[in-house]
């Protein structure tokens, strides 16, 4: 094993292993023939747990069926921060891989000693170590409590791709059998002895303050155990769920609030242009010679409205308060940061709070998972000894989740007479894209701001480059001699905004890819060829060529006035997966995306079908975002409260999809969960233009907007 001395500064270890260096934080070899792994990353429907099972089984040479998953908990799991940004494989997966490789080596050392042979004499088949000379012993016989009670060294290299037998195969999702048979799976399904049900009455509008509430009449309702009021935080606990719901409705009716308007005049995101911003040029290239050759210049402005994550299952949490300590079950994407903020609000030491992850409905970013956890804790504190389950209603989720920011993007660019882009400018306006728990100051939990002694919200954050937040994917991957990218960040947000799958990439890539087509049109070029003309990156070119081939793209193909096709491309965050998408739209009675083709290169594919599944899902979700979705509000209130107010793509409307996966087993795996959002939006705008000759630039591309554009 490693000879490294303990006195040196700790060496940087791969992925999340660096911050969680004990091997037994990651896995345990059990005497019963199983291996328990302790991922800090959590399942949000993206299939990460299945990929981790594959990676561990691969390194240990065991059947994947032997791997058990421990739910992530602050009590024992490695702290892997937040599960987001398509970073789970690179951070958690890589750590798990090194930890498992090292565990295997430790087991082999014991086996060698036990069998009296050298390490080279050994091979492993499903946890049984065989010596070439005969004799064998199993991991389950070799293991002991102290086996992994040590620091990781990362000195044992994981297997090379050529040796992989489980990684790289479309191993079936480990969580699916329970989900299709109705076995309790989600935090929503939890039952604890004596569990009560809670509901929250949110203020009617953002600045509303609770004046008066006739709590007694609600307390007298059947089954009501407690009415909890703290400042403008108002909730109810009841024995039965429907009783809690009825009490919530009554409370909402009889409570009195002071309201004042705080929201912009209109739901059009252009209100952003009038607010004060932090301005930064994030990329600049200058070549005066090339700039001088411009022959044709165009300008365009794109936007998207405020968007909802709109998880199918509204957020839910269970909490209990026992002897001044708290237990919380949550579908939060970050159990440790959540614990930090809960401790601030409760004024207790973090050690008094245990936060355990239980799966929720797919979240697509920062939704109300964390907020409902605080709600549950506040209600549980009022009924010590009795666990409380709080379920947000549909209206709570639409009305109060942290939204994806509205954005405005102004493009200006020019081509020369050889049809090359010589000038490119991209200017964007957006709120920040992160108000997750765990900030330095304050707390990012909704109820914290409503308490009589509030813990204030911190200044909203915006993830920095290179990944970026509002400016995610604002810097084009194309090669232009002159470019200037400017980020106008408007921190003060009338409605809280946070990360929604893809963050700024959805609007930035829509703008870039639409504008590429607008310039291609100006240059009289085919959109595919025009993109390739400006791209040096071979992997980028490869996905564009692959999707063009899959869709049988014809050079300069034209739509027929009803149907048409368009292309979009991006490398997510400019450092994760490469995705190119072609869609076909049909503008009949409704505007519909009928078909989509995609090519994705996410480096080494741990689970090819998992990547394809995520890409299909990303495309369908983006079709929905781009054609239909916008959160609406008036000066006082959010007006989007139900699925009727916020229609999403339905089964009759879902497009057929063909995904080509370009697997590169010898390259590092790249995050793949969010790569389709930007390219799909761009492809839709381009397909509409191709079909009808009108350019829609403000998302959502609704029928009304299309009719208005055609009339103009």
């Amino acid at each position, binding site marked *: 094993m490693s000879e490294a001395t303990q006195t040196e500064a700790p060496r940087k270890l791969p992925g999340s292993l660096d911050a969680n260096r004990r091997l037994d934080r990651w896995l345990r070899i059990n005497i019963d023939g199983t291996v328990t792994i302790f991922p800090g990353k959590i399942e*949000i*429907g993206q*299939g990460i747990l299945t990929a981790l099972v594959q990676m561990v089984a691969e390194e240990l040479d065991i059947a994947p069926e032997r791997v058990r998953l421990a739910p992530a908990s602050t009590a024992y799991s490695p702290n892997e921060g937040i599960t987001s940004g398509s970073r789970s494989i690179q951070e958690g997966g890589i750590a798990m891989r090194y930890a498992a490789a090292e565990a295997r080596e430790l087991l082999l050392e014991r086996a060698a000693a036990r069998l009296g042979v050298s390490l080279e004499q050994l091979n492993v088949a499903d946890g049984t170590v065989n010596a070439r000379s005969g004799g064998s012993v199993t991991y389950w016989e070799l293991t002991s409590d102290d086996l992994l009670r040590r620091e990781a060294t990362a000195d044992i290299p994981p297997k090379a791709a050529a040796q992989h037998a489980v990684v790289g195969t*479309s191993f*079936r*999702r480990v*969580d*699916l*059998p*329970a*989900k*299709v*048979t*109705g*076995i*309790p*799976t*989600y935090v*929503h399904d939890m039952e604890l002895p*004596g569990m009560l049900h809670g509901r929250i009455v949110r203020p009617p509008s953002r600045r509303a303050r609770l004046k008066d509430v006739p709590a007694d009449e609600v307390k007298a*309702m*059947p*089954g009501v*155990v*407690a009415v909890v009021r703290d400042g403008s935080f108002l909730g109810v606990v009841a*024995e*039965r*769920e*429907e009783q809690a719901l009825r009490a919530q409705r009554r409370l909402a009716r009889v409570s009195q609030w002071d309201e004042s308007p705080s929201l912009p005049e209109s739901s059009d995101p252009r209100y952003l242009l009038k607010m004060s911003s932090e301005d930064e040029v994030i990329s600049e290239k200058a070549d005066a010679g090339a700039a001088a050759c411009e022959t044709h210049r165009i300008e365009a402005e794109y936007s998207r409205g405020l968007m909802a994550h709109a*998880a*199918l*299952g*509204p957020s839910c949490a269970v909490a209990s308060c026992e002897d001044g300590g708290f237990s919380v079950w949550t579908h939060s994407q970050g159990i440790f940061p959540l614990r930090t903020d809960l401790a601030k609000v409760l004024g207790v030491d973090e050690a008094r709070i245990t936060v355990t992850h239980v*799966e*929720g*409905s*797919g979240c697509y970013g920062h939704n109300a998972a964390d907020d409902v956890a605080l709600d549950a804790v506040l209600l549980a504190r*009022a*009924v010590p000894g*009795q666990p409380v389950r709080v379920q947000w*209603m*549909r209206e709570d989720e639409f009305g109060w989740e942290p939204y994806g920011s509205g954005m405005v993007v102004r493009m200006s660019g020019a081509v020369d007479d050889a049809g090359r882009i010589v000038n490119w400018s991209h200017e964007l306006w957006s709120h920040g894209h992160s108000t997750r728990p765990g900030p330095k100051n304050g707390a990012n939990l909704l109820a914290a701001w409503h308490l009589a002694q509030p813990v204030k919200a911190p200044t909203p954050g915006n993830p920095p480059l290179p990944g970026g937040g509002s400016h995610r994917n604002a810097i084009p991957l194309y090669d232009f001699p002159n470019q200037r990218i400017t980020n106008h960040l408007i921190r003060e947000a009338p409605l809280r905004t946070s990360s929604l799958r893809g963050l700024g990439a959805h609007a930035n890539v829509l703008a870039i890819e639409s504008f590429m087509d607008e310039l291609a049109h100006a240059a009289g070029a085919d959109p595919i060829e025009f993109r390739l003309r400006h791209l040096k990156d071979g992997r980028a070119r490869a996905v564009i060529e692959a999707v063009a081939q899959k869709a049988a793209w014809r050079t300069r193909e034209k739509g027929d006035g009803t149907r048409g096709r368009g292309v979009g491309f991006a490398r997510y965050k400019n450092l994760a997966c490469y995705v190119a998408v072609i869609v076909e739209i049909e503008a009949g009675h409704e505007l519909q995306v009928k078909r989509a083709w995609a090519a994705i290169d996410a480096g080494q594919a741990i689970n090819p*079908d998992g990547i394809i*599944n995520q890409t*299909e*899902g*990303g495309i*369908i*979700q983006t079709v*929905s975002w781009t054609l239909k979705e916008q959160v609406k509000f008036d000066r006082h209130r959010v007006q989007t409260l*139900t*699925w009727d107010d916020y229609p*999403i793509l*339905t*089964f*009759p409307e*879902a*497009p*057929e*999809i063909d995904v080509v996966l370009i697997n590169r087993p010898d390259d590092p795996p790249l995050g793949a969960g969010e790569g389709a959002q930007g390219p799909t939006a761009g492809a839709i705008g381009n397909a509409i233009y191709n079909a009808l000759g009108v350019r829609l630039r403000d998302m959502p591309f609704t029928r009304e907007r299309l009719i208005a554009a055609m009339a103009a």
Partner: protein
Amino acid sequence: MGTRAEPPAAHPERRDCMQLTLNVNGAKRVVEAEDETPLLYVLRNDLKLKGARFGCGLGQCGACTVIVDGAAVQSCDVPVSAVLGKSVTTIEGIGDDKRLHPLQQAFIEHQAGQCGYCASGIIMAAKALLDANPAPSEGEIRKALARNLCRCGTHQRILRAIRSARVAGEGAR
């Protein structure tokens, strides 16, 4: 406040709470609830059948879909009293991990899930369709699912799974 209230029978204000006899998954089940309680809450909280899921409580999303006398019904939108004397089937009643229903099998076969929150409601809607019409067209399948939302975008896999169960399951019922 802060103490647990009396058990139901002794509660003076629980006038409307009554014993209701339901037929769920082929078995007689007695619950004590007010008769306008949404069926969904009775299934989940009284009978501990968690497969029907809460998505909206408004009859808009289908996460709570169960089958009542052969028809797909959104259980959040139906008072428990409306199913007395009728036969209620939930996802737990059609198969389990040892004996999967052909639709459940097909969902696994086609990996038709991301978060899976929509899955049980969709499987029940599909089962109601296939029971009534063993060989539906693509359009009929899509139409039968028009009131079931999937936010993860798993639509194509779900449709593929149902199409395959349609063929595989034909004649089996």
